[in-house]
């Protein structure tokens, strides 16, 4: 899905936990998430902490969209 969107010329960033899978599939811009059932907020942590994590990582994803890259890139969080 990520590849088809990019092929259509729409800039796309994939937020995923299994980054090696994203790489193999062929995503170009990637941002790691923290888990599979709760990618952007651990329910065992306070709401405020979940929000901070989510706000931060979505920010990284937006910056990834605004960054020119030459190769597949995993953006640091």
């Amino acid at each position, binding site marked *: *899905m*990520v*590849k*088809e*969107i*990019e*092929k*259509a*010329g*729409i*800039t*796309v*960033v*994939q*937020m*995923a*936990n*299994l980054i*090696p*899978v*994203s790489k*193999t*599939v*062929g995503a*170009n*811009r990637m941002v790691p*998430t*923290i*888990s*599979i*059932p*709760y*990618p*952007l*907020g*651990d*329910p065992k942590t306070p709401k405020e902490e*979940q*929000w901070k994590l*989510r*706000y931060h*990582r*979505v*920010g990284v*994803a*937006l*910056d990834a*969209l*605004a*960054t*020119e*890259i*030459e190769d597949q890139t995993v953006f640091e969080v």
Partner: protein
Amino acid sequence: MKKGILYLNQFFGQIGGEDKADYAPAIKEGVVGAGLLLNNLLEDAEITHTLICGDNFMGSNQDEAVEKLLGFLEDKEFDIFFAGPAFQAGRYGNACGVICKAVKEKFNVPVITSMHEENPGVDMFKKDVYIFKGGDSAAKMRKDMPKMAKFGNKLLKNEEIKGAEVEGYYPRGIRFEVFLDDETPACDRAIDMLLKKINGEPFVSELPIPELDRVPIAPAIKLADAKIALVTSGGIVPVDNPDKIQSSAATRWGRYSIANLERLGNKAEGAFKTIHAGYDPAAADADPNVVLPLDALKAYEKEGKIGSIHDYYYATVGTGTAEGEAKRMALEIIEYLRNDGVDAVILTSC
């Protein structure tokens, strides 16, 4: 009698389903669950121990998981290592590949697993691990396990291995020398192929070059005036799942308005939930924003970091979904993205 060790995930190791996918690495003596079948199929070997680890534990804490699992094996004697079969389960395929590769590197024993051809683990690990061509679901256990066992028996007896195509594992990219019965030398075969090619006749290459399917990188966008869309394969839908998107092997997708929302309401509020059958839904049902981060994106819209958020989000379920279906659904979604002037997409996956 030779000794083997088998790796299983929480489900096949009989610990539990998705709610136990965070299960920390463990070792059990003897056979558990699916191991019984393998043990019965081995001729002059037995499974002495079973390693078990939750798929999410392995996915999110890979270094820790591998270290613990290898630690369990340090004082064990074994001649061969098996994992799976993993069928089309992406996380399980990843886990089987990771542990097989690590065991091979540390203990230098043969490692064998099995996966469906669409399991991403195949491309990730086929160079390092014997991965047998397997079915798409656990219903194929009785077909896939015997293939692993048969090959294991062969290796343990030091029988001649005849290469990927004959044995049934995915090619590892290792060239295998064979002498043809008719002894036609390579130069003659090459000229024969060339003549066939010139004459437009079909021929089969002896050295197929693997194709890497990569897409050109789309250009960076200017965030300040960009329209951003959210797309997810995490199965977030309105609570009544109006498009009846399937919980796995999805062929349908949905387009849902978020135009007047600050955040996604949860299942208890009668708003959004997940229908994805590949992970424990508790966290996503309690707060769907952990999968589809509308609340955070809204904050960036208010701050002026981005121009606007597309009025709709798009969702399907990415577990057991065939590549062809995923492609078709993406093309259908792209129509809407284009027509609505979307500049960029955040795609979240579980």
